[in-house]
């Protein structure tokens, strides 16, 4: 205990320094003059409380951790069915989830469906970035640029040429992929963190250009009135625009605005399923293997005759094309886009989804995307403390599971020595 006294005092001192000036004193602006005001007694009470808690925690850290060890950790592995059983259950489970995904929106409120749609956009983005960061090991901090390209492609094409969502979707993906290819080509010889900052720079450049090119992109005004997707030409609005029919008229049912929300959601589900399917396939193809090989060992790859530039470029391009799809869908869901939706913090959140999910693991990325979008919504009740908690939880989650929620597992065989 005595040995713990000094670190405990030190920790308490640090806590005091961290809080005393920043929380204990407040700057107040009254007209043109700035004054300082001491915080009220209760705030100082909280500071004192925090200092004491930190002190006591550090002082008794030894006994606490010993106590923690004595509590038997719950062993949940016994509850799971055996390996064979699990493999047999897997397809059933998957089909159950997929059926659930399609049935679920008809049973819940439209707010929940809309939130789920947003989540699915992030799932798509996370899966796309996962190719670049998780599989190929290239740190991309400007992923949002391709997302913006996708969104603006649809917005501009529908505004100037009246193209529909379904026509724009592949164009958006292709264009984003082209951008990825053009941007990727010169920078891919950079390593690690240099690549990170250059991609970050590209992200910012694209955003600023979109913001400054007012004559085409509307600059900061953004582009509004973007059409929602239609179902084989059937629109989901109260009144049909000229020359087309609405969904409810065609089927002779009453107009219900939630049809539109649910339809958007279903489109998102389809896109996500498609993304998952494609990535799963590609991952098992030679190029997918090459990505991972390159991530693990650059030099070994080269000596085996693989061309690192082409491999990296293919990962970059493919990741970008999924961002393009997601962007196109985002523009359709919003109906209005402006450059402020494509800031660096968006890239950071997508990256956080990939890392939190456990890089390379698709299921983990999906879980993390759900966590990262639902969390701020759940925290709505905390009003102004919302973002504080978001930041704090991000740190805590990484500390709690540094390997990610569900780290990637390679299929492997184990020799049983009995």
């Amino acid at each position: 205990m005595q040995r713990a006294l000094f670190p405990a005092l030190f920790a308490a001192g640090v806590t005091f320094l961290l809080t005393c000036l920043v929380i204990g004193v407040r700057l107040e602006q009254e007209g043109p003059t700035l004054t300082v005001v001491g915080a009220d007694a209760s705030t100082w009470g909280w500071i004192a409380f925090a200092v004491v808690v930190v002190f006591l925690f550090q002082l008794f850290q030894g006994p606490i951790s010993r106590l923690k060890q004595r509590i038997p950790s719950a062993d949940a592995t016994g509850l799971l069915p055996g390996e064979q059983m699990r493999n047999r259950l897997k397809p059933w489970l998957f089909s159950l989830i997929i059926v659930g995904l399609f049935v679920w929106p008809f049973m819940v409120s439209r707010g929940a469906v809309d939130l789920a749609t947003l989540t699915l956009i992030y799932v798509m983005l996370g899966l796309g970035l996962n190719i670049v960061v998780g599989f190929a090991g290239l740190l991309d901090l400007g992923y949002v640029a391709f997302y913006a390209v996708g969104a603006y492609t649809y917005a501009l094409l529908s505004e100037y040429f009246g193209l529909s969502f379904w026509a724009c979707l592949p164009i958006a993906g292709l264009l984003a992929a082209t951008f990825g290819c053009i941007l990727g080509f010169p920078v891919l010889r950079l390593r690690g963190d240099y690549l990170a900052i250059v991609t970050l720079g590209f992200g910012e450049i694209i955003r600023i250009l979109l913001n400054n090119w007012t004559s085409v992109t509307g600059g900061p005004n953004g582009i509004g009135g973007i059409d929602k997707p239609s179902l084989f030409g059937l629109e989901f609005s109260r009144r049909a625009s000229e020359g087309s029919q609405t969904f409810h008229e065609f089927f002779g049912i009453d107009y219900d605005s939630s049809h539109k929300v649910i339809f958007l959601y279903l489109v998102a589900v389809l896109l996500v399923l498609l993304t998952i399917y494609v990535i799963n396939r590609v991952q098992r193809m030679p190029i997918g293997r090459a990505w991972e090989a390159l991530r693990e060992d650059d030099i070994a790859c080269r000596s085996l005759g693989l061309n690192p530039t082409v491999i990296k470029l293919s990962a970059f391009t493919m990741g970008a094309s999924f961002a393009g799809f997601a962007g196109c869908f985002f523009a359709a869901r919003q109906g209005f886009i402006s450059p402020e939706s494509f800031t660096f913090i968006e890239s950071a959140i997508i990256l956080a989804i990939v890392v939190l999910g456990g890089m390379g693991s698709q299921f983990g990325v999906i879980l993390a995307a759900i966590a990262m979008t639902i969390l701020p919504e759940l925290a709505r009740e905390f009003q102004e403390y919302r973002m504080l908690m978001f930041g704090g939880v991000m740190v805590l989650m990484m500390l709690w599971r540094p390997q990610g929620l569900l780290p990637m597992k390679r299929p492997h065989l184990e020799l049983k020595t009995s």
Partner: protein
Amino acid sequence: MTKKATFGKTLVAAGTLMAAITAAHADTLKIGIAGPVTGPVAQYGDMQKIGAMMAIDKINEAGGVNGMTLEGVIYDDACDPKQAVAVANRIVNDDIRHVIGHLCSSSTEPASDIYEEEGVMMITAASTSPSITEKGYELIFRTIGLDSLQGTLAADYIKDKIKPQRLAVIHDKQQYGEGLATTVKEILGDAGIESVMFEGVTPGDKDFSALIAKLKRNNIDFVYYGGYHPELGLILRQSREKGFDAAFMGPEGVVNSDLAAIAGDAMEGVLATAPKSFDQSPENAALVEAFKERNEDPSGPFVFPAYSAIQVMTEAMDATGKTDPFELAEHLRANRFDTTIGEIGFDAKGDLTEPTFEIYTLHADGSKTPVSK
């Protein structure tokens, strides 16, 4: 046959039950207040919130509307367009049919699409972008003047009174600022006063020394700034330091006591278009007291427009005896209302029929005096 009958009965029963539940709740009417609670512009969201909340409390004190008490429900969109859509959907979901908000034009625009589609009435007290009401919405209104009106007013004043030799128009590359700056530049250009410089600055930037050196080099004698107070304050402060002494003019976004704090003495004599300062008008004295009692600051530009938004909404409810947004909208367009921002009416697009802006000279102590025309 019997099956159908049972089904019908169940439906009727369920309907009655639903009606009973709704009736039980009919004594409160929820009004959504959507705007930023978090994020960099949270302080403006606060202005809208205190204005609307005060109006709700006052109306409840006076017995409510049609026997219902009002309840303000706050939604945070953080001025992020993506969250604004989520908030709008949530509001629809929560069965709220009347909304005050949103604040930033970039959030209001995507959200108003949803409200119009879902039959929710929205009155914004802060979004001044002309494009919001241009689509001819039925249910979207605002109790604040448009950017274009403000720009026209400023441009007319510049060309009639100032007659600058070398004019610069600077803006902050945001919807609000650039829109205003473009209006001013175009009107003055038509009148034969060309802008020597027209360029943007980065919002949040701190260093404008390069820009000021450029203004100095071009011998600018008058600067119109489209944007908010933090950047203009720094431009003024750094201009004073570098010995650049042109006259400045800005929109209502710069009229804020914080501008005086940032710019210091350099603020003296800056011109600005601003809504009439409603907290100064004698009719609102009692209300200003009420705000002060709650330790709230009534001087923000959106406080009284938000108050009035609630006022016109409830007056229409009183007059029609209904809460249906479509009927309220009809009533709003057809009548004139006496509010804390003066007597107002709405045009077909949902905008105020009369501009509420005036030109002021700002002073170093944070006060402002109207310019005699």
